[in-house]
């Protein structure tokens, strides 16, 4: 599995994400937001958390227009994989690669704590290591994680089994407690919680490593 991890000005989870991929056996390349192309043979792009471009205008709005995201769009259109975490999820919605939008948390406060997620589907290469209905303890740290989508879009997500994770408590006001969603081809996942922060026993939990191992299993021979 070859992973490319993007760094934008203001990214702060890029290194952790690279380490999580490496621990799952990936060959990791780091790419810069001004790069025009992804490394040859990239299987999956990691769009990390942080505060790209200072969250100016809207979270993820400026990053979505960066040169590297044009390359990511082409990669996804060709059937490539992408994982957007936190600010990365916001960037993927701003680029239109995932539906919906992340609004200010309903409680208006930055929420930083470990939450219990429910795995809503095991039918994706990201979530195959769990059974649907399993729970996972994974940290969140965000101010704008209130997932919002129109009624029609929400129905489509449910009909197509594209909600990947939900919160088991009200964390940020997200519709139906949605914490992560999949693209129509199930190869792009955006999620607000940080699995890379729960991928090493020394850092307080390993539930997140299931996601990276699932990917590694699916993409090992790709």
């Amino acid at each position, binding site marked *: 599995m070859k992973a490319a991890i993007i760094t934008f000005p203001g990214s702060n989870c890029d290194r952790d994400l690279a380490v999580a991929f490496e621990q799952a056996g990936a060959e990791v390349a780091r790419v810069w937001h001004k790069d025009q192309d992804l490394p040859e043979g990239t299987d999956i792009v990691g769009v990390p958390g942080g505060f790209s471009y200072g969250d100016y205008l809207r979270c993820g709005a400026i990053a979505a227009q960066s040169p590297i995201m044009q390359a990511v769009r082409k990669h996804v259109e060709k059937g490539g994989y992408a994982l957007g975490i936190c600010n990365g999820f916001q960037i993927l919605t*701003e680029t239109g690669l995932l539906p919906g*939008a992340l609004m200010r948390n309903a409680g208006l406060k930055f929420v930083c704590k470990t939450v219990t997620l429910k795995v809503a589907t095991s039918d994706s290469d990201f979530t195959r290591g769990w059974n649907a209905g399993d729970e996972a303890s994974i940290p969140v740290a965000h101010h704008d994680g209130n997932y919002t989508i129109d009624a029609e879009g929400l129905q489509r997500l449910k009909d197509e089994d594209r909600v990947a994770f939900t919160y088991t408590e009200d964390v940020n006001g997200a519709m139906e407690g949605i914490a992560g969603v999949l693209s129509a081809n199930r190869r792009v996942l955006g999620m607000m919680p940080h699995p890379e922060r729960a991928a090493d026993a020394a850092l307080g939990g390993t539930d997140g490593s299931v996601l990276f191992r699932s990917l590694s299993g699916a993409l090992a021979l790709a």
Partner: protein
Amino acid sequence: MKARVHVMLKDGVLDPQGEAVRHALGTLGFQGVNGVRQGKVIELDLAATDKAAAETEVKAMCEKLLANTVIEKYSVEIA
């Protein structure tokens, strides 16, 4: 030529910040504020001289960057 863009959350999209402002106004003794919606004003200084062309251009900017049309609506004034 100047353009002013107003970006607001679409009707029906809950505005938690506007709601917090409404509560704060009530706390300060301002009664009778039934609702508050908070948005953005973006002012652009344009080289264009044709008003219609400028408006078309600014609308394209709104669609591509200035507004997230999943949750926001916008209006453009050219002066």
